[in-house]
């Protein structure tokens, strides 16, 4: 092998080795989670890394201890509500801030951006007080309202709206399309990757939300999947096989959504527009 070829293949081998290592580090927690859901507590604590035959038993115990179907249903309803409404609201807001921008709107956008600096925990108490007075505690609206409009999503749509071709906008206006029509018929189809990225982020954040739901959803009927998993860890004696079965069920939807939307997600994050 020539020196050049050796350098080329040697470098490539190193790159692949690094990537393989990183992939293993990234995938290992998921692998361990799935494997552990097939093992019992003693096997998990003993560090067993291959599946055993306890999956059915763990699932049976999980469904006996917790109302998994109800929690899953609540998580799905909450997530779908937030997903649909926040994408609709934030995409229109981001589009509006960019296409119709002036000094006043830019100042409003700056204020919205600044609100990203305020951690949620700082507004938790006043928000809960307000919702109690409005009668929103233990209601879907109480859960979804604070998540509907997020500065991050507005910023994402606004930044991506910058790449929306002005020619298309002007041509649509000349053709007599209304401003809302331009948004629905031109902007939405062209910004599909941005919507996919926003959907992935919103899905993950909403599905995994814990702090606000545990405060505002107080009845056992309203429990969500992350709250259910946390309940499994509450005892003096923890059945780790059952916990891992719960974690697996809780994680699967996020994994599936991410795999479905990953191509568009990458494109949007890289700023590409078809």
């Amino acid at each position, binding site marked *: 092998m020539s020196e050049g070829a050796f350098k080329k293949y040697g470098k490539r081998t190193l790159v692949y080795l690094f990537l393989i290592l990183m992939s293993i580090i990234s995938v290992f927690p998921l692998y361990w989670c799935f494997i552990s859901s097939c093992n019992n507590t003693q096997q998990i604590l003993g560090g067993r890394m291959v599946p055993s035959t306890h999956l059915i038993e763990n699932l049976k115990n999980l469904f006996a201890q917790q109302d998994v179907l109800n929690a899953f249903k609540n998580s799905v309803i909450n997530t779908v509500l937030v997903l*649909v409404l926040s994408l609709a609201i934030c995409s229109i807001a981001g589009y509006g801030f960019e296409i119709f921008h002036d000094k006043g709107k830019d100042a409003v956008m700056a204020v919205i951006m600044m609100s990203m600096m305020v951690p949620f925990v700082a507004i938790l108490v006043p928000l809960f007080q307000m919702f109690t007075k409005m009668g929103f505690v233990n209601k879907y609206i109480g859960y979804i309202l604070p998540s509907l409009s997020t500065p991050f999503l507005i910023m994402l749509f606004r930044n991506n709206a910058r790449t929306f071709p002005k020619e298309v906008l002007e041509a649509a206006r000349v053709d007599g399309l209304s401003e809302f029509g331009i948004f629905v018929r031109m902007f939405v189809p062209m910004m599909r990757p941005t919507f996919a990225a926003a959907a992935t982020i919103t899905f993950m954040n909403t599905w995994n939300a814990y702090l606000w739901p545990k405060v505002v959803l107080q009845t056992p009927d309203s429990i969500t999947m992350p709250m259910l998993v946390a309940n499994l860890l509450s005892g003096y004696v923890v059945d780790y096989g059952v916990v891992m079965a719960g974690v697996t069920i809780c994680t699967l939807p996020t994994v599936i959504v991410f795999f479905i939307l990953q191509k568009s997600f990458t494109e949007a994050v890289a700023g590409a527009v078809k």
Partner: protein
Amino acid sequence: MKKLISLLLAMLMVLSLGTVAFAEPGDQADGKLTIWCWDQTFNIAAMEKAKEMYQEEHPDVEIDVQEVLWEDVESRIIASNGDTSTLPDITLIQDNAFQKEVINYPEVFYDMTDTYDFTDFGEAKVAYSVVDGHNYGIPFDAGTVVAAWRTDYLEEAGYTVDDLTDIDMDRFLEIARDVKEKTGMPMLSGQAGAVDTVMILLQSCGGSLFNEDGTVNMKDNEKLKAVVDVYNTMVAEGLFIEVNSWDEYIGTLSNQSVVGTFTGCWILSTIMSLSDQAGLWAVTNMPAMSGVEDATNYSNNGGSSWAIINNKDIDLALDFMQMYRNVDFYDAILPTTSAIACYTPAKEGSNYTAPSDFFNGDAIFAKIVEFGALVPANNTGAYYYDARDALGTAITNVLNGGDIDSELATAEDTVNFTMGF
């Protein structure tokens, strides 16, 4: 236009769905009780039994026992900011956090000093929920410390559990060194950075991280220095193995890599779940600190108490909570929950006096109730967990060669800073 109308209709539909409510809990003086607690096999099961026994006499009373994690109970108390309308009638509170909650949200907790009889509960246990001389909590599960030892390993080194009963720390270290030499096994294990063992030893001699007036007591706390010194010695000599997590600590017991443990009696549920080790364990009291004033062989780690919430059906809640002064109730919950009573007369119950097959016929539960009555009280205050965290850092630094005096002084400064001094 059709698409626009469809979109608006879809949004209207999801918005209307958004206003659908889950069932609201009863929150007035309406003959209903809502109760929050967090462990299905333990305190929830106990409360369900109390509910069943109470409803036999009071069939019209509606009692809803809800599973709410301790962390969630705390978050909801904080979020309520003193408004009790979203809180239940009764909630379980971790003992170490009880005083903090009452000090921060006094309007939430009902003062039951004159309306509930606290005689026959362990003094130290009651003290966890006393603030300024007022009682706010009804003791539930004991965190009484037990020392559980593997008799087969002790036997291999020429000892029995009697050799580890009513002993002081000097004798314990002597035995621990000998056992390690003969069997190669460390006596104890624990989570690195978690200060359970140090706090257990500190309370066993009546010591606290706070003075009675709430000021921090770490820098010149002779009892604390002695305890940290003992802990340092045990770790340095390999008599106490530090592990990285709670799961690993449990692993040392299940994998049979330590001789035993001393911690809250709730650990017995875990030990008794190791069916392959039945007959190999014995329970006794912990070693007392040597040369330290007020040292005893008894302490506490963990546990919880019931709080009654203000502006609720307090009369009904008080009547229902009389169940926690009922020997039959404690006797009924012991086999299914392993919840060991803090109510001393419970030790007369048939399940308490029954010999345990797992522990070679020893009536361990009656023994633990007796231990519980001998535990010295301590002060927790509003900054207990901050002080524990600071102590954890100090201990880690001492183990890495730091000076005890200066590390405890730094820890005290850290807690004072948190307290705003």
